[in-house]
């Protein structure tokens, strides 16, 4: 989970903060309320998650509860991976 969060944080710092590490952003800070992402930014984040972690995100899953903080994205990805892993083994 720690590594997941670091990967997600690295993407957010690079893509939305353009390398600005002076801005304090905790794992639980809201990305929306802190103006880190806008409506197109959240779709970038979804795209990153799909490409990097090989998970599929349904439209109905694009929720603040899944994408509004580093911790939430990490938990969402971890949950998805846990679901998809047995399927991968089965196939």
């Amino acid at each position: 989970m720690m590594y997941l969060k670091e990967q997600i944080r690295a993407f957010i710092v690079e893509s939305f903060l353009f390398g600005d590490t002076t801005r304090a952003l905790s794992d639980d800070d809201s990305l929306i309320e802190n103006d880190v992402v806008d409506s197109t930014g959240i779709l970038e984040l979804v795209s990153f998650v799909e490409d990097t972690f090989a998970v599929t995100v349904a439209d109905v899953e694009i929720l603040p509860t899944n994408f509004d903080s580093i911790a939430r994205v990490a938990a969402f990805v971890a949950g998805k991976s846990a679901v998809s892993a047995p399927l991968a083994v089965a196939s």
Partner: protein
Amino acid sequence: MCGIVGYFGHGMAPDAAEIVLQRMSHALRHRGPDDSGVHAEIAAGFGHRRLSIVGLADGQQPMCNADGALWISFNGEVFNHVELRRMLEAKGYRFRTASDTEVILHLYEEKGDACIDELNGDFAFAIWDSRQGRMLVARDRMGVRPLFYAERRGMVFFASEIKALLEVPGIEAEIDPFALDQVFTCWAPVPPRTMFKGVLELPAGHCMVLDGSGMAIRQYWDLDFPQDVCGAQNEQAIAEELLALLDDATAIRMRADVPVGAYLSGGLDSSVTCALAKPYAASGLRTFSVTFDTPEHDESPFQQQMVSALGTRHSAVACGPEEIAGAFPAVIAHTEKPIIRTAPAPLHVLSRHVRDAGMKVVLTGEGADEVFAGYDLFKEAKVRRFCARQPGSRRRPLLFSRLYPYLPGLTQQTPESLAAFFGAKGEDIGDPLFSHRPRYRSTAAAKLFFSGDLRKTLEGYDATDEILARLPGDFGRWHPQHQAQYLETKFLLPDYILSSQGDRMAMAHGVEGRFPFLDHRVVDYAARLKPSLKLRGFAEKHILRRAVADLLPPAIAQRTKQPYRAPDSRSFLTGQEPNYVRCCFSAQALEETGLFNPAAAGKLIEKCRRQTDGFRDNAAFVGILSTQLWHRTFTRQSLLNDGDRLLAAVN
């Protein structure tokens, strides 16, 4: 319509003053290619560049009255000059010219400073009253025509554009960092602030008196929303009255001694303008459009419908990435301020096209969205308030995705995401700037790129405080929609739309824009109508649509507002990337200006090159590029004292 310059105060011998005035007016020659003149006295002087439209043979300026005691330098048009002349003649005034300029002079003789209240027009002028040793400087109600001023060594210098003031010895271009913060929040500096430290803008609807006791500035007109005084009438009667008013506003704007054409975007507003103008164009109406090769920006099918319906002589100019990128440095030389959208560039291309077609006056549909609540922002604020009343609702936020059908990202969002983006920030619905906070906030996100030094300078500063400070006393008593309309009409309209997209782009090629929807009678009339007559549900400009229903093809009359936009970063970064873009984003150039973080800006341009950028990235890209260009154009120009460099950019 022209360019004016001048000074008030002792400090220069008339001979030296004449040279300064000539240099100043030379800097504005794009505004008035037809003629020029200067008049210098010990205590005051004027210069003028003329674009001849009314009184072609005898309207030279600066102009004086019969005994030479009053002098005027005037930029703009007085559309009701015919009626005013008749009234003045009845009172015994004799006219030597056919110009509207002389009408203002005699009106001043008759009414003094109150002459401004009688003028229906777009103007910036100065009258030197040598007998009283005082000067009156005034700017039109809506802010169509610009007027800037600066004080140096006890003298006040003024001009239609700041580049003329930079010709005055001792006035140098130095950036006002707080103005830059305003651009990156509200899209433009909030007058009287400009991008240039020490150079101020006379706000729209204001006048200034200069005399021995100093400078006094007062607001002579403000937008007001009295309580629904038209409420007693039925809707049909209001629609008929409005149509008659719009018809007259258009008719008096067709007055000119040269042909008057019209811009035709294919939207409701410009289509109404063209339909109303057609009967007054004695030799047929010429219309002009921009077309884009990107379907999300292009409106040519609607333009063609209107051309067929009205039978105008139409001409379109294609505007693609190459044209936008090619025009952009000149655009910034004209706007004299950074911008966060490329939208002015196609209008720069269009005005050149109009001028090449031999025309120098066009009507446009600008102003209707402010006056009749056409912008999406008004609907958005309405939905945000609606959601705020029941924060837990899952249904209410879905309305947001209906607001912006042209933004594909939004339709994919869930109600929770939409609520979060638009209204889940614990907003204070009592905030006077409630309607505009999302715009300010999303624009301000681009301040992420500000350098450490700039952030330190701006610490504790809030750009919106200067807007709050300018709100009228009654503001809190108005309906929320009217509050939003006030903010849009009094700030973005004059400070960006009429300036960066309007006067500056048209006058770059000596073209005068005229705006029937901004006739103050129309503005005042619409302000008296109840909010739901303007925005009914999600149907914007309701009463306007009803008033003009018979003038337009149904597809145009019922067309939903499509905001005018142009391709942003794509214009610069697809195909051949212009050298100036690479230069402006180079670490060396960014360090030299010291305004942006070079590493972050470098990552931004790389992201834009990969075309993975969003709206916010686009605004930041255009904002940084235009700021760098602004710096290169003006501050270096001033340091080198090289007027030709600027003029080369302008031309």
